[in-house]
Structure formats: structure tokens, C-alpha cells
């Protein structure tokens, strides 16, 4: 009987391909838009994720998200160190100074200042140089975006100079950064030097980076830091999600993408559903004949679901491959880096597609179930 169902499906070539393309493009649209949305949201947490050696961030209790910080006092590092369960704590500075090249090109950059002694937080994925080079005088590490902005179409060489707040800095390393939300260049310097690259403020300590002692969970140490110092402590993941929630709640990005995804979902469901419905209606005679020879309703339902699954599987495979191919092609572009087809999105799209084809097929199933076998014998 399953063989009959497959034959029925591919027998009508136009409708068969139409169904597959409806599902494939619906899949592509949904997974692609979801990936771009997730990528943009993920970008807001790039600098949090790029710091791979500390798992807890301590900040002012009123901090909403990563890009807007209120400075702590220098002593807060020592207060955090005094909290039981803290293995170590080091300062981290984050600022937005303006970098100038000597040809007059300028750009606001994300300046990260890492602890002078330990360099906790320094980038490790370097194209040229090493994190230890930060110890050199006036050293900065710049990401590829920054380098290519200031020295476009030039080979990567170290030792070039830029100007930051009237200070001359030397590029001692070029690294791969995760793209920030605004895709600003990312610079790293030592904490003591980074402070001099921004204007005068009284307090400049942005974050305290903490590592929990062995055997204690990060969330437990966060709770203890909060209780002991009155500051807000969050794990990297929590802080990342906090930042994402801020952007979701305060920008139009989710609405925009949400509408696109919803339309993809609706169009996919309606086109596939309608095509399937017409397909089933046209095959009513065949179903009637099957019923007339004694095939049960259950069996017929199974046949229709099999057809739906087949269409869904083929359409989904093609659609998801299109999305994967898109991000494979754009992978090399620096400005589009960080957009990755997450497996969660692929799986979620699969589930939605399954739902679409099931819903579409079930819309037409009713007609078959109430069908009188006698209809076959009428005109």
C-alpha cells in the first residue's frame, strides 16, 4: 500500500515538485532568517564570549547589558577577592575611545583593558603576534576588522602605529574577534594603558572577572559575591542572555525578524497545505477505489501521512542545504562573520516543517475519511 502512496505522489509531477519547493523555500526562509536573527543577537555578546578564561562577571548592580557600563571603584577588585569561593579576581576595562590613523582615518573602537599582571581576557586566536606582546610598551592588539579598516588592502604586519587620545600606540598583534553588534573594531591593551586612552573619569574599572574555586558552581559564587559586596555578579552565559534580552526588549530587531519568520511559516503552511489539499481532492477517486476494495480509514491516513513526510523530508533537506550553502559562501566575509546555522535552528526548522506538512495533510484527510466508496462508480 505504501508503494501505491508513493506512486500516487510522484505520479503528478507538477504538484509533487510544487509541494517540495514550497516546503524547501519555507524551510530556507525560516532557517535563514532565524540564523541571521540569532547571529545578530549573538553578536551582542561577542565580547563576553571572547573572554574565555573567566566565567563570572562582576558589575554594577544596575547594569542592563554589556555595552553600557557604570564604573566600579578600583577597590572592588580586592573586595571581590575577599569573597569566599573566589579563586581569583582581576579587573577588566571596557571603553569606546576614538582611534586615529596618521592618514586622518578615524573610528570609534571597542577598547578592552586586561589586567596588567595576568592578561586575563586577552585574545588567543591571533593571526600575528602573541598575547604576551601586550606587555610591550604602548602595545595594542587589534582585530582583523580594525586592521583592515585602518590599513585597507595591505598585508598584515606588526609595528604599525595609531593614535588614541593623543597617545601613540603600536600594533603588536592581530587577532580574530567575534563580531561586535555594531561591528566596531576591537582593541586590546593592558588595563593601566587602556585607562589613558579614554577621557578623564574618576573611576574606570568596568568589570571584575572572577574564577570560582574548584568544587563550587559559578552560580553559587555569583550569589556569594552579590551578598558580600552588593555588586551584581553573573556567569558569562547569564550576562550574555541579559544583554540579548536587553536588545530583544529595546530594539525593533526581533519584531522585524519575527514577522519575516511568521510569514515564512504561514506561506509555507498555506501553500503546502493548499497544494496538498488539491492533490488529495484530485486523488479522491483513487482513495475511493482503495476504500471500495476494503482498505481501512487508518490505512489511508497512514498513506497520506507517508506522502506528507516524504514531501517534508525532501523539501526540508533541500531548504536546509540552501541555508547551509548561503552561510558557507558568506563565511569568508569579515563583516558577516559569526553568522552560524545553529543546530538548534536546524532542528527547530525541521520540527516546524514537520508540523506544516502534517497540518497541510490533515486538512485534506477529512474529505477522504468521510468519502463514500460509491463515489468511484458515479460519473
Amino acid at each position, binding site marked *: 500500500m505504501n508503494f501505491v502512496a508513493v506512486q500516487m505522489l*510522484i505520479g503528478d*509531477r507538477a504538484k*509533487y*515538485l510544487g509541494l*517540495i519547493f514550497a516546503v524547501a523555500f519555507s524551510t530556507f526562509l525560516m532557517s535563514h532568517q532565524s540564523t541571521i536573527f540569532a547571529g545578530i543577537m549573538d553578536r551582542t555578546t561577542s565580547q563576553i*564570549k571572547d573572554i*574565555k*578564561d*573567566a*566565567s563570572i562577571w562582576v558589575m554594577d548592580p544596575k547594569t542592563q547589558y554589556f555595552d553600557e557600563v557604570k564604573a566600579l*571603584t*578600583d*577597590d572592588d*577588585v*580586592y*573586595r*571581590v*577577592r*575577599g569573597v*569566599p569561593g*573566589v*579563586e*581569583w*579576581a*582581576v579587573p577588566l576595562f571596557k571603553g569606546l575611545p576614538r582611534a586615529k590613523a596618521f592618514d586622518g582615518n578615524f573610528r570609534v573602537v571597542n577598547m578592552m583593558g586586561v*589586567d*596588567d*599582571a*595576568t*592578561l*586575563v581576557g*586577552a585574545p*588567543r586566536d591571533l593571526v600575528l603576534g602573541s*598575547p*604576551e606582546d601586550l606587555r610591550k610598551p604602548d602595545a595594542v592588539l587589534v582585530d582583523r576588522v580594525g586592521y583592515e579598516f585602518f590599513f585597507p588592502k595591505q598585508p598584515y604586519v606588526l609595528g604599525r602605529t595609531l593614535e588614541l587620545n593623543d597617545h601613540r600606540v603600536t600594533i603588536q598583534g592581530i587577532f580574530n574577534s567575534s563580531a561586535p553588534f555594531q561591528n566596531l573594531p576591537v582593541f586590546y591593551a593592558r588595563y593601566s594603558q587602556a*585607562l589613558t586612552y579614554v577621557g*578623564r573619569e*574618576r*573611576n574606570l574599572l568596568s568589570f571584575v572577572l572572577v*574564577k570560582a574555586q574548584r568544587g563550587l558552581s559559578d552560580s553559587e559564587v555569583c550569589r556569594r559575591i552579590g551578598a558580600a*559586596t552588593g555588586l551584581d555578579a553573573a556567569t558569562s552565559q547569564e550576562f550574555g542572555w541579559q544583554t540579548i534580552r536587553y536588545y530583544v526588549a529595546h530594539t525593533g530587531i526581533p519584531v522585524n525578524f519575527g514577522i519575516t519568520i511568521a510569514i515564512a511559516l504561514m506561506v509555507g503552511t498555506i501553500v503546502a497545505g493548499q497544494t496538498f489539499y488539491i492533490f488529495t481532492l484530485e486523488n479522491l477517486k483513487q482513495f475511493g477505489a482503495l476504500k471500495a476494495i476494503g482498505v481501512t480509514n487508518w490505512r489511508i491516513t497512514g498513506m497520506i501521512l507517508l506522502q506528507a513526510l*516524504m514531501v517534508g*523530508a*525532501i*523539501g*526540508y*533537506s*533541500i531548504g*536546509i*542545504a540552501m*541555508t*547551509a*550553502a548561503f*552561510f558557507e559562501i558568506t*563565511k569568508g566575509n569579515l563583516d558577516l562573520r559569526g553568522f*552560524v*546555522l*545553529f*543546530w538548534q535552528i*536546524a532542528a527547530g526548522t525541521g520540527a516546524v516543517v514537520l508540523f506544516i506538512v502534517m497540518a497541510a495533510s490533515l486538512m485534506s484527510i477529512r474529505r477522504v475519511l468521510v468519502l463514500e466508496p460509491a463515489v468511484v462508480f458515479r460519473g
Partner: protein
Amino acid sequence: MIKYGLPIFAALALTFAVIKIVHTQPVHAKLMPPAAPPSAVYANQVGAVGLVEAESENIAISLPVPGLVTRVDVQAGDRVRKGARLFSLDDRDLQAELALRQSSLALAETRLEKLAMSPRPEDLPPAEAKVRESEQLYQDTAVQLNLMESVRDKRAIRDEDLQRRRLAVKAAEARLDQAKAELALLKAGTWKPDLDIARAEVLEARRQVERVEADLSRLVVTAPIAGEILQCKVHPGEYAQAGPLAQPLILMGATARLNVRADIDEQDAWRVKSGATATGTVRGNTGDRLPLHFVRVEPYVIPKRNLTGDSTERVDTRVLQVIFALDPGARVYAGQQLDVFVDAGGQK
């Protein structure tokens, strides 16, 4: 074709997608820091930043008077004993004044000597001769009067002559008395009050000399304690200001043992108990833990001194300073920063 081709194509497409998805998933592996940060030592601890200083605390050498530096006798790193000469200021004007005062002293002394030695021996014979002369003159007038009085017949002499001779005797007598008195005065020497005045003048001149000498000695700056010269920022030819300076001329201290001055945030101050042990680590070498021994708590909580050195900073927190001693031979330098963990009690 459509019967098998499409499913096969779909299967290939799905395989491609799965491979790409698997390969591009972001990895969030945790890494170790490039250099190990100072890590927790005690179960209950207070973190602080410590500044290494000399056991005697760091002494910023100052001077009582400003002046031009002419000689510097030490350099950074020298170990000096107490009272050793550190540097000297220009003393030419005071040396000139000293010479002047010394000559004044000599003058006063000579004057006193002269007064003490009077009468001058050569003055006596003329005075004695004068007495003798007056005596002879008196004798002469007395003889003349005698001759006149020995005349019996008073008519032979004029009464006027007799009167004149009598008066001449009296005058000669008075002159003799005067000569004798003058001789006596001469022999008596200097009057005592005059001598006293001269002695006082000598003393005054000597005090003047001593004052200039004291001024001169103030131009030589010496070590107040035995210790090590930590910093020498004074050079010959420079003008040295008196009073406290932002950049001390010479910084010294007793560095046989070093102390650590730990700044503890006032919010954590209550957790530090007197006598608490502590551990310090040098920045850049956290593997080497230095034991710290409690010395004392500074009883006054002071505003945090920010190491950025910005003078316009407002105070936002105050710190309790606790002094700890380092073991002798610890490989740290005065002025170095340590990350300090103070034991706040409790189980590890």
C-alpha cells in the same frame, strides 16, 4: 529520474547541511589565563593591595634652608650610617661672613688683652719723674718762703712778696699732690667695669662666630638614621627647595627588613583582626607566595590614595592600613605593589 533522483539529491543535500552544521557550531572552551592570577589562600580572606616600604617607613630627606647644591656624597643604593654626609649646599657667603666674624672676635679679644695689661710699663717713669719734679718744685718754693720768713726785720721785705711765696708753696704742694695722684691712677691700671665690658664684647663676638658656624653646618645634610638610599634626585648645580616636596630630594629608609602597607577597603575593615596572618604575591609571579607577619594596624582610616596619581580625584572610599613585615631576604623592592590576602579566620 524524478522517482529516485530527487530523493537521492535531497539525501545528499541533507548530508551536506549536517556536515556544515556540525563543523560550524561555535566552541566555547574555557582557557587558562596567560599568567596565573593571584589565587585564594584562605577560606575566609580579605583582599588588599600592598605597597612595600622600608621598615623605618620611607624618609623623604628635607633641608632647613634652600640653596644651591654643590656636592652630593651618595647615590641610590648606597648604605649609609647615621650622620653620614648626604649632600651640601653652597656656603660661600657664609664662609665670608665667618671670616668677618672671626676678625671681629680677634679685635675684641685684643682690646680686652690691652685693657688687662695696663698700665703700660713705659708710662710709669715719666709719671714718677713728674712726681719728683713736683716735689723739687715744692721744696724750692718752701726754701724761698723760709728765706723770706727768716728775715727778722719785717721792713726789709715787702709784705706782698711774702704773701706770694706762701701761695707759691701752696700751689707747688697742690701740683705735687696732683702728680702723686696721677701716678697712683696710672699704677691702679684699668677700671674693672671697663674690663667687664671688654670681656662681654669678646663673648658677643664669639657667639657671632658660633652662629655663622651653625648656619654653615645646616648647609650639610646628613643621614638621620642608618639605612639605604632608595632614591637620589639631587645633583650638583641644582637648586634645592626646603620643606616637603612632591619629588623628595633623597628618599631613604632602613631596608634590612621590608614592610608591606596593605590598603583594606573600609567596607572590609571589620573583617581584619589584629594579629591576622597574610600572604602576598608579587605581580607577574603569583607562584611565589610571600608570608607576611602582622606588625600593626594604623589606627586612622585614610582616604584611598589612587595610584593613577591624578590630583583632581575626589575621595570615594577610605582605607584601613595594616602593616605587615616581610621575611628578610624576600625578593621584593621598596615601592613594589603586592596583591595581599589577609586571613579573616575560619576553615579552609
